């Protein structure tokens, strides 16, 4: 009898969990939103909307940009990392060897890494803000937003190992935002990773496709927004 009660209680609790789970328990998602809001508020002067690309843009003090689509279903390119090409070219980059989606704009001497993230349709009540878009991303494409334990950062994976990260708590972190770039396509295109000025070439712990923690090389460019 007792055993039956035990199983019943366990089943009830499991069921309760299933019903109450996901959204309500997604503290990482919730705090990702509040911390991103903090970043947006701090860098409010550098947050703009790019009509052409139908995306929001957050610009670093050095002019690097992270752009995220206002509606994944309406854009082909949903996530963009844009930065000065000179350090890479000086380090040996042959722009003709860059893969698809990696665009060099000779006029502005900038590199733009363009990625399609998904086809999710974002909903808004009234006028959309950059934060509203991010909330939609957390809600509808939760898997691209994660927590980076080592730096106490949140991150949004845009594709091919490239990310935009921001501090969970800016008050305790000197790296408020970080551009994280996969160095491999650049290395393949002739870049000597140690010679890229302004970017740190470092090992970063990430999870592989099997969920195992592995160390990978990244170009990192952090900024203190305060």
């Amino acid at each position, binding site marked *: 009898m007792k*055993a039956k009660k035990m*199983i019943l209680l366990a089943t009830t609790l499991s069921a309760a969990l299933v019903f109450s789970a996901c959204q309500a328990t*997604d*503290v*990482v998602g919730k705090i990702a939103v509040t911390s991103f809001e903090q970043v947006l508020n701090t860098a409010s002067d550098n947050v703009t909307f790019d009509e052409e690309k139908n995306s929001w843009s957050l610009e670093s003090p050095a002019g690097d940009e992270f752009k995220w689509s206002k509606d994944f279903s309406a854009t082909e390119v949903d996530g963009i990392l844009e930065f000065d090409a000179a350090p890479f070219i000086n380090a040996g980059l042959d722009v003709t060897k860059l893969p698809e989606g990696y665009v060099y704009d000779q006029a502005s001497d900038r590199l733009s890494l363009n990625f399609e993230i998904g086809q999710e349709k974002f909903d808004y009540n009234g006028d959309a803000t950059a934060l509203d878009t991010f909330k939609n991303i957390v809600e509808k494409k939760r898997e691209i937003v994660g927590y980076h334990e080592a730096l106490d950062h949140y991150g949004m994976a845009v594709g091919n190992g490239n990310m935009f990260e921001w501090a969970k708590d800016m008050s305790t972190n000197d790296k408020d935002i970080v551009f994280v770039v996969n160095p491999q396509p650049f290395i393949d295109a002739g870049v000597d990773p140690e010679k890229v000025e302004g970017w740190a070439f470092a090992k970063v712990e990430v*999870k592989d496709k099997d*969920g195992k923690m592995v160390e990978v090389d990244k170009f990192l460019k952090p900024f203190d927004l305060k």
Partner: protein
Amino acid sequence: MKTENLKVFGMTCAACAKAAERAVGKLDGVEKVNVNFATEKMNVAFDASKLSMEEIKAAVAKAGYEAKEEIETKEVAIPVAGMTCAACAKAVERAVGKLGGVESVAVNFATEKAVIKYNPKDVRLSEIKQAIIKAGYTPLEIENKNRVDEDKERKEKEIKTLWLKFVVSAIFSIPLLYIAMGPMVPWLGWKLPAWLEPMNFPLLYALVELVLVIPVMIAGNKFFTVGFKAIARRSPNMDSLIAMGTSAAFLYSLYSIYRINIGDFMYVDDLYFETAGVIITLILLGKYLEAVSKGRTSEAIKKLMGLAPKTAIVIQDDKEIEIPIEEVEVGDIILVKPGAKIPVDGEVVEGHTTIDESMLTGESIPVDKKVGDKVIGASINKHGSIKFKATKVGSDTALAQIIKLVEDAQGSKAPIAQMADIVSAYFVPTVFVIATLSALAWYLSGESTVFSLTIFIAVLVIACPCALGLATPTAIMVGTGKGAEYGVLIKGGEALETTHKIRTIVFDKTGTITEGRPEVTDIVTTGIIERDKLLQIAASAEKGSEHPLGEAIVRGAEKENLEMLKLGKFLAIPGHGIQVEIDGQLILLGNRKLMVERNIELTQLENDSDRLASEGKTPMYMAIGNQLAGIIAVADVVKESSAKAIKRLHEMGIEVAMITGDNKRTAEAIAKQVGIDRVLAEVLPQDKANEVKKLQGEGKKVAMVGDGINDAPALAQADIGIAIGSGTDVAMESADIVLMRSDLMDVPTAIQLSKSTIRNIKQNLFWAFAYNVAGIPLAAGLFYAFGGPKLNPIFAAAAMSLSSVSVLTNALRLKGFKPYK
């Protein structure tokens, strides 16, 4: 002083037994109290004028346990005919319920059965049946359910419950372990679904772990209820350690959930639900295996209990009626057919047969039984049909006595157990202190709270006194049980322990080394008569004699199938012999004194007479018509096994002495025959104990082996008294060990068994201590401080469970004990 046995419920480890013992020991009027954790029994000697059983039970209850008197309650299901409605059932219930000694009665009208629980000491089954008849109904043949079944049911239920709890825990702990270990040990490659990624969904991850651990905590709820209650009573036990360890892990994990919930995701690494869950699961598994093994340690007693047949065929009015064994009364004539078991003890009144008594005496050769011989309940009738008169029934039978003896022995404590008890009593509080100090030390040395917590949990969990508490009683249970199988009944743990220290054994001569029944050994004639004729005349003359020597001559003639001659005048000459007339001739049969007084010339057989006397034999002269006809020598022959047993004892390094009232010459002759080292001759019965004392004065542990009433004081004086089963009740009462057979080879067997058991106990204690001695410093991080390993609490739980199981397994190895042949 009154001694009572109580069954104690609710104990989970040796510390509980000690707590119950302390609680009762404190009561005014208690002289001695002994609680055996393995048998769950309390033996208490107290002054009944100062203290009642209720007060003792109350003291046990105050200590947190439940004590019940060992009432041999029986339950019977009596089919009742004649009931036509529910009111009839009620009437039967009323009629039976009124009887004193009836604990409960439930009559089911649908099944037409009355299930009655009663105390056979207060009410007889026949009285219950009579009450049913008086109420107007007919009791039919009984379906019996005895104490063995009840005990078995209880144990089986306990094992089943533990298994179920373990299965439930395992079902939830395995996924819990998978979820927890997957992210912790990447090389395992255990995948988790994306929605359960601890770094992405830490709260959900933690909640899933919480949900999985709750059923495990419920399955192990007894550890918490018992453990915390024990802490509240300031007598913490093994459950307290488990409760504290797992609660600490659980509560800290709850705190981690709270921290995760407020955004401190790093606390996802500080979840210890799997530690709590797996510890409980492993301990439940250990408890289950322990219950199974404990059941096996008492198999001997169950085997003994199972020996008795359920029914007996009683002859009533020349009719054979099969009745339940409980209904057999003293004086009943019982029929036993070939192949059937003898139901109760009795005396053969008709027929002859051979009976296999091996299950009781260990004697493998079936024993011939004829009219007048005694039969023992539970032995097996081999060939002929016999009728016997029941002389002892119920708890008076030899089997019931043996069972009681073995049960008492199994419930007793050996002095070696006291050390384990003392250690157990201080063990748990000490472990608490060690756990707290180690955790504190690590914390102060700069380690994290989590590290200190794992140290605290690991120390609490690994330091289980359970193995310590089981080490001695389980070995004693198996050892005494094994002894009973071979017909060696050891009365207690103390006897079992002392026996292996014996350095000198004193054997009583008559009936112990010898058969105790003189036999004709030699016949020498002068030539005026033939040998057989001499024996025939002597036996005819002694026919009807009650003198042991005369009886020996009659038996001698009977063995040779010699017919008895008709006697003429008969005259007994006290202290000398007899004088009879056979076929007109005067026959004198007696000692040398008689012959000398009657001027019979003895010179011719003088040498033979001296030789026989020097061999320890008693020469009896016979003269026919004032002329010496011959000598019949009578002697108490040594048992077949005596010399072999003494040789074996010598091989064991034991000095063997013989004590007898016989003259030195006779005694030395016997001693020489069997290889005795030291002869204590011409000792008066009342001085036997003094002789034993003298030997003890030489600093030796002395055992005395005897069979007679006159041996009782010496048996009591000796460090170990060993009574031969064929001997008197008084001897058996005074002895520490009773040999069911008269085979002296059982003496070395008893010593060998004692040695094996004590060795087993020492091994058990070693393992129990070794686990703790090695485990506690390891768990406390002592080795880690010097660059060595640290113990994960989960492995601590596994090791702790293993310690109990290994101790029990080692104790069970004793089941393979085989006596020296």
